[in-house]
């Protein structure tokens, strides 16, 4: 149906013309952003049935698949793209009620970060993946600075780490290219077996570090708390909802297709668990609510990486479901937290006391999302937690299951602290008026409860996605089918 490259091309076009829209009328950029993300969602859903049948190869520039850049959109990529554009759509609704200083540049960058993330998810070419990672990172560097104050410092730190990461990535790409001779993922995967094991190991580690920064793994993710705290709410929302999902996808794509050796999955497992535990423990300490959410999303990423690197089909499915839930819940959390902060005028949790009565929608949104994450039955978190535990027990990893549960317990602890402060403490501060976020909160709550009560909705795409990512030979066949 509609060609999927439009998902990247159209936002690009809109971004380039944003300054002109700004000149026409100052309110226009907001609506352009909303319309583009909505259009992307429509394009994605129109291709849904087709991709469910068989993955779609889109050759860019009309060249035969493996020899030039091609987009490979399988069920997994589709799910991830839905996630990214979905959260971008919700956040752009939220943005309608926000106004930024350079709003044309903001929406330009906002569109580009979504297009970059969708590009990361859909590309079938290694260097193209690098370019899209760079697009997302640079968009993120500049977007964080919109909040002024110490956000410059956070963005500078992220820039340094991003720079080091891109060097690693470039080295990795150079090595793979000179060893295999092509940049297409399928071709590399086809001849990955022949690469000398030592070289394979070094290249895999280069990629691990390069993409690990994007997928927020343990030693590489110290930029996450600074960026999510200092950036404006919409940016932290899109970062935690969409960009981290794209990072996880890229990591999974690289390690499941190119370097499927068990040794790397053990590394990922260990790193994932450390990220999980570290994230939860530090999140408990935080007084700043956004920093707490940052560490919590960091920990959730660790959880997803741990579960996916278990390698069984059930585990990958559980990980993906958790990824989807996490994005939905985090976007809602960030939006409500944003409103609560602007209402209380400070990011400290203790100043948010008693806001439940004054800001019902935001407080309600925060509570629903918190309960979703904590796995209350009839909400989406419960089912993904259930699947995670059963899949990790299935792979008889008792210690890992125990750690996951312990981490979930700590998580309950600090989310509850905030929920209690919101509802069951009396209000001391006078409440500033803030943006009205009823639409995004309602949309997301419906999604959460819908997925919780009837998860069959996305069972089929998840199944196909898990199957597709796991056996890379099918990936190679589809891309190199011709030759």
């Amino acid at each position: 149906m509609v060609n999927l490259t439009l998902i990247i091309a159209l936002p690009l076009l809109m971004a380039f013309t944003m300054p002109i829209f700004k000149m026409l009328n100052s309110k226009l950029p907001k609506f352009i952003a909303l319309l583009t993300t909505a259009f992307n969602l429509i394009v994605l859903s129109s291709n849904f049935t087709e991709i469910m049948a068989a993955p779609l190869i889109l050759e860019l520039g009309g060249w035969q698949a493996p020899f030039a850049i091609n987009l490979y959109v399988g069920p997994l990529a589709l799910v991830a793209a839905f996630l990214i554009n979905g959260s971008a759509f919700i956040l752009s609704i939220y943005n309608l009620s926000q106004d930024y200083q350079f709003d044309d540049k903001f929406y330009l960058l906002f569109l580009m970060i979504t297009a970059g993330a969708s590009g990361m998810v859909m590309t079938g070419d290694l260097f193209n993946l690098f370019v899209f990672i760079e697009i997302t990172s640079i968009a993120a560097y500049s977007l964080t600075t919109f909040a002024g104050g110490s956000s410059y410092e956070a963005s500078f730190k992220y820039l340094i780490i991003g720079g080091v990461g891109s060097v690693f990535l470039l080295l990795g790409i150079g090595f793979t290219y000179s060893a295999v001779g092509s940049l297409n993922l399928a071709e590399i995967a086809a001849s990955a077996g022949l690469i000398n094991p030592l070289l394979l190991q070094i290249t895999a580690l280069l990629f691990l570090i390069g993409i690990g920064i994007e997928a927020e793994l343990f030693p590489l993710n110290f930029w996450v708390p600074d960026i999510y705290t200092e950036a404006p709410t919409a940016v932290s929302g899109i970062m935690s909802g969409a960009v981290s999902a794209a990072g996880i996808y890229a990591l999974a794509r690289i390690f499941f297709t190119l370097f499927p050796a068990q040794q790397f999955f053990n590394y990922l497992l260990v790193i994932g668990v450390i990220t999980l535990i570290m994230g939860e423990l530090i999140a408990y300490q935080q007084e700043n609510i956004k920093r707490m959410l940052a560490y919590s999303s960091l920990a959730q990423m660790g959880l997803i990486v741990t579960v996916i690197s278990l390698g069984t089909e059930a585990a990958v499915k559980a990980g993906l479901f958790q990824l989807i839930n996490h994005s939905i819940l985090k976007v809602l959390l960030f939006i409500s937290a944003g409103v609560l902060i602007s209402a209380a005028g400070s990011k400290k949790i203790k100043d948010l006391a008693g806001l439940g009565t004054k800001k019902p929608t935001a407080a309600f949104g925060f509570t629903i999302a918190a309960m979703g994450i904590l796995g209350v039955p009839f909400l989406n978190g419960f089912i993904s937690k259930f699947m995670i535990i059963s899949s990790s027990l299935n792979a008889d990893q008792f210690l890992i299951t125990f750690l996951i549960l312990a981490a979930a317990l700590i998580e309950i602890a600090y989310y509850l602290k905030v929920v209690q402060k919101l509802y069951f403490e009396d209000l001391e501060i006078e409440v500033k008026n803030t943006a009205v976020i009823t639409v995004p909160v309602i949309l997301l709550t419906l999604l959460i409860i819908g997925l919780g009560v009837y998860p069959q909705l996305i069972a089929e795409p998840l199944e196909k996605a898990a199957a597709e990512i796991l056996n890379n030979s099918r990936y190679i066949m589809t891309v190199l089918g011709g030759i």
Partner: protein
Amino acid sequence: MLTKYIFVPAAAAFAAYILNKKNKKAGATITALVSAYLLLSLALIYGSWELNQSFNLSLMGYQLEFLMALTPLSWLFAVLTSAISLLIAVFSIDSQADFKFSSVFNLNFLLVIGSIMGVLFARDFLTLFIFWELMTWTSFYLISSGKKKMAGRAAYRYLILSAAAAYSFLMAVIFIFQQTGSFAFEPAAEFLLNNSAPQSILLLLAISLPFWVKAGIFPLHVWVKDAHGNAPKEFSPFLSGMLLKVGFYGLIVVFHQLSFFKIIENTIAYRGLPLLSYLFALLGAVTIITGTILAIRQEDMKKLIAYSSISQMGYIIIGIAIATPLGFSGSMLHLMNHLIFKSTIFLALAAVIYRTGTTKMYEVGGLIFRMPLTFAAYLTAIIALAGIPPTNGFISKWVIYQALIEKGYLFLALAAFFGSIASFMYVFKPLSTVFLGQLKPQHQEIKEVPLLMKIPMLILIGVIVLFGVFPGIQMNIISQISGDLGIETVNYSLYSIQGAFGAWNSLYIFNVFAAGFVIALLVFGLAKKSKLVGLLDTYSSGEYVTDAESYHYAYQYYRPFDRLFDNLAAKSLTGFYETLTANLLKSGESFRRIFAAGRVQNYALYSVLLFVILAAVGWII
């Protein structure tokens, strides 16, 4: 149709929430109506044990089926829940007049009832878990809607503890699901039976953990005091009456239906009782002792009664753990009786709090003159709690003693005796400080509680005396249950129970007691009429007494006794849990200080370091 027991309260809950916004009384009336409806329909389906229902759902590739069935045990608990919620709802129609969160209260209260029904009728672990979580969450919101900061902290600790236990339950249950392919109890029981003993014991312990927490047994009883002390005054009776009991429902299911006792049959035994269940009984004994000692020290009446609930729970767990027919029926009797008299006490105290607004005992006094009915309710309830003959409390304690002596468990009996005698002390303390003694000036114009609050108290007094004289009523349903669970029944008649060393004829004793009372009355009547004198006109051995305030002995009632246990009470268990979590989380803090110290060069250094380490690891392997 068992699901109606879950969906009717749930639907009514939202209706109650909306209606209550308009007028304060609507919510409570709806709760009352719903529980009355539940009670009625339960009564109708008594006996039809084959009633069951199941619907399955293929979810994300897992074939799950949700089974619901009615068993005598679950029928009894369901009746108790709906009865006690009916009484509380009637009571809270008026008592919620000044309660800010009353609409949230009614919403959650109905949801709790619905989820308890769900837990009781569940025949498979998944439904049990779902409704168990729902129960925990809704009761969390209920508790935290009590007194401001304190309720929040109490509810918080309650939820963390039950969440940790629920996760261990989930882990064990999913492990069984992997082995047997289904969540239902029967296949799980049979799998556990022919599985290796230590592993299935471990699994069953993990499954029973949430039930231990909810039942408030010794190591896990920390949440009970604060939860009761700070919960809204209408919810405490339900919390200590019913919520603690649901934990026992779970334990009975684990011990009998999941054949826990059959599994540990062959393990080493102490005096004919497998060591593990003796350990549980010992835990019960320790619960009794700690509960009583801490109860005596309390100054807040609700906390005192909360600790008394903990110690009474000890009796029930002893009864269940020694697994003799006498023991089991004794604990079931005590479970029902405790529900009745504990909710009467809490309702009476709620009435007092409703009128005086304070829960501290030394701030009130002499209320008998103003609130005689509440005093009567409280008196009958504490007579039952202390286990004094004509009331039902004595019967259940007597049966448990028979069970203990029959098997010769000395230490358990010692704890049980200590518990019951010491209960005189902590039961008498609120009686004397709150109701008797000097009436405070500011409480002069207190009136008795409105009619709607009197009715539940009257009904409960009637029930205490009724079961006191005719325990047979309770025994038929208990024998039905023990038959269903495969324990021989104790023979009984309408008014007497056959213990190990002799029958207990409650009607006979009631008559004798009445006779003795009549003779005493005669002696009293014959003597000269006495002149009524005010309270202040007492022999004060020379001191000049002016205000009632200083003349009322209420503060630290048992100071001498408490001095014996001061050091023990100081290092309370909650302290232990607090320090445990505190330094666990401090490790998080030091973790952050080492790594995330805000220096970007360190961050970049760590990424290169990770590369080098992983390369080295790869190179070594």
